């Protein structure tokens, strides 16, 4: 396949940045999107130009590093996948593809297509954990049976990879799907209930502080989330938050 790529280039956080056109030929449909960019980059390096910077690591759809905004969609046109799992067979010969970073005030651009998502880490630092000593002096794991349904729901929420696609696809740059998933994981487990009130308050407060917008129930986040994290988690977070404030 021969393609035209329109890629966001931005030297660093202070640079203004602009779209630049590239032509790439002989793209195999079996390549992943990132492998296609690898090929582009080796060509650029050979020409003495700087390669396009993008985040990636596992290339298996699980680490949450890769983060491209492709043709106006986070992680591109395929559903339920991250960019590293998107394959070129989803495109046609002659296509023009727009590639941009995830845009949100809370995600400043570091370079080209790489953004800083450490706001997510700071939200986690504010309460995304269960306060238990890591000493191993805990009770036997089977002492507290957990309803399989709850365990499965907690697991589904916990599969969020922190990629930020939800933020990037939301017109308000809201992080509620991410935070909702985190709050839900613990809210559903007996171990996490004890500090549920403080957790949700602290995490939500940090989320607001980081400059993420509010949820207006558009649902774009759920559609673009590569892990199928459901809007139910936002509802659960809102219930937890309401309850926490009533308790106060």
């Amino acid at each position, binding site marked *: 396949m021969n393609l035209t790529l329109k890629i966001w280039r931005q030297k660093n956080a202070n640079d203004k940045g602009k779209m630049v056109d590239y032509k790439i030929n002989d793209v*195999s449909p*079996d*390549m*992943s999107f*990132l*492998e296609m960019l*690898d090929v582009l980059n*080796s060509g650029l390096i050979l020409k003495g130009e*700087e*390669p396009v*910077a993008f985040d990636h*690591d*596992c*290339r*298996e*759809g*699980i*680490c*949450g*590093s890769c983060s491209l905004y492709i043709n106006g969609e986070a992680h591109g046109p*395929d559903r339920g996948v991250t960019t590293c*799992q998107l*394959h070129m*067979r989803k495109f046609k010969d002659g296509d023009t593809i727009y590639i941009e970073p995830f845009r949100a005030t809370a995600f400043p651009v570091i*370079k080209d297509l*790489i953004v*800083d*998502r*450490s706001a997510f*880490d700071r939200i*986690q*630092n*504010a309460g*995304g*954990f*269960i*306060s*238990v000593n*890591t*000493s*191993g002096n*805990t*009770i036997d*794991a*089977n002492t507290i*049976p*957990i309803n*399989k349904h709850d*365990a*499965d729901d*907690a*697991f589904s929420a*916990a*599969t969020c*990879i*922190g990629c930020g696609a939800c933020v990037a696809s939301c017109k308000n740059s809201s992080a509620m799907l991410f935070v909702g998933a985190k709050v839900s994981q*613990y809210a559903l*487990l007996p*171990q*996490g209930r004890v500090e549920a009130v403080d957790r949700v308050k602290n995490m939500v407060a940090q989320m607001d502080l980081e400059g993420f917008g509010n949820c207006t129930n558009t649902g774009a986040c759920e559609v673009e989330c590569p892990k199928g994290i459901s809007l139910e988690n936002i509802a659960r977070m809102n219930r937890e938050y309401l309850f926490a404030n009533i308790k106060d």
Partner: protein
Amino acid sequence: MALDSKIPEGPLADKWTNHKNKINLVNPANKRNIDVIVVGTGLAGGSAAATLAELGYNVKAFCFQDSPRRAHSIAAQGGINAAKNYQGDGDSTYRLFYDTVKGGDYRSREANVYRLAEVSTNIIDQCVAQGVPFAREYGGLLDNRSFGGVLVSRTFYAAGQTGQQLLLGAYSAMNRQIGRGKIKMYNRHEMLDVVIVDGKARGIIARDLVSGKIERHSAHAVVLGTGGYGNVFYLSTNAMGSNVTAAWKAHKRGAFFANPCYTQIHPTCIPVSGDHQSKLTLMSESLRNDGRIWVPKKLEDAEAIRAGKLKPTKIAEEDRDYYLERRYPAFGNLVPRDVASRAAKERCDAGYGVNATGEAVYLDFADAFMRYGREQALVKGLDVNDDVLVKKLGQEVVRTKYGNLFQMYEKIVDENPYETPMMIYPAVHYTMGGVWVDYNLMTTIPGCYAIGEANFSDHGANRLGASALMQGLADGYFVLPYTIGDYLADDIRTGPIPTDTKEFDEAEKSVRDNINHLINNKGKHPVDYFHKRLGKIMWNKCGMSRNAEDLKSAIDEIAELRAEFWKDVMIPGSADEYNEELAKAGRVADFLELGELFAKDALQREESAGGHFREEYQTPEGEAKRRKEFQYVSAWEYKGEPKDAVLHKEELVYENIEVKERSYK
């Protein structure tokens, strides 16, 4: 220098308890005055950082990703072992110990492995308390599955995302300590050297990958939890950033490197599809619980399949060769990884491979669909003779167990594995070799520790599935936090370690010189060009099977390639900005040295053991042939060029296990 493994005296089962009772402790008030650097925030480093901070030490943690949660451990799929015996199928600490030592082909240290088995049960309790959502049965209790090389069900799992859930658990424990200010986290930082002061590890030199700034960080001890070096092969199941740099730099500063030639080749990966490929994708070994592995019995069928003229589903049962079940009736499809990988290669080399390049075998779920389906039909009171219905019900069961793996396969291969058998082939996966450590997990550099995949200690010549996660968390949560106290107890009066000293000057200078050379080189080829070539040499000559002649030529070829790299590598951009090519170049430079030591180690080990298969040493049936005189750990001391490294041997003594021929028949 003589190697002292510091294995405690006394009966095996009491060693760890006795050791803990005797170990020096640091008074809580004094821990506040002690700094520890933890490099790496995977399962090993993350759990260590959280626990050390919890104990009261000041921790500085480093990772090259943008968040600790993205460490390579996140990708582990299948599960984590623990001798809980919840299933009542005869598991015990001793049996886990026994399976691990046998699985490692009697090339691991008894005392370490026993301790690992002993603390394994704590790991599960700890993780559940932290909110790790392991799979559960309908009664609310934890569920288990089985992995290769064992006859019990001791593997705990969270669908095909166990590593993710465990890492998020460790990360949440870290978050709690970051929030309390006890861990200072340095994301997007790469450690480029260890600083030695008066013979002790007292800090690191790191590069901020965003600004390119070179930084000095001091501490009373340095812990490396920096993962394995499988990416020396270029293509592997490891994440793209995985590298040997931290371990290698420690090696150059005096840490012995042990068993570099022990590589695990995982039997169930998605086969290579073309030259563009940047990495290989693993399909969890747990699939072998339900999938049956086969190739056609007749050469002409294999040829027709390769030519696209025949579909696997059209091959009759009697024309299929379930070669693992045939050769190893006791373990069948659940033989250990080294055995399964070699058996696949043997069939493909003999011409029975099933993909275009002839380097793939089938992993078939057809039987499992029907077996589970019939069960479901019975439970639900439906017609067990309705094959279409039964298959559908069975597929649903398989979907809940391995759905994400099936989906991943379909995305990559563009074929529906529910309808046609998966194709798999072995790929480089895990490295059992690593920095040599004693029983306390300390390297030959005082004050420098290595944990998780970065050390060599627990898996011998082959790692059984679901044991790496167990080891990483055991080291990080339960072993290192004790043993490091023994060393740090002497440091309570040392005070902060200054960084404006000649040792830091010297280390920083060597890092800068290296970077300046690379960036100013302006050669002809990008970094990947060299990495791919190195990978080809490694795979062809140091891969699934090796022989003396190939290994000798590999040593020379790698040395030549290294010279060419330093002369000809081209790196765009500058050193004081985000520059991925520069970071990659530093990593590949270290791989180019490690690769040579790897081949040298493989050459001197004149035997076959687990993941190290020397063609000259095999039984008439093609099984690995161990030799008594090689019952040792090879620990290499750095002496300039890797080919000049000096071998030290740690003899392995088996007092509690009879060293037998390893058989899975």
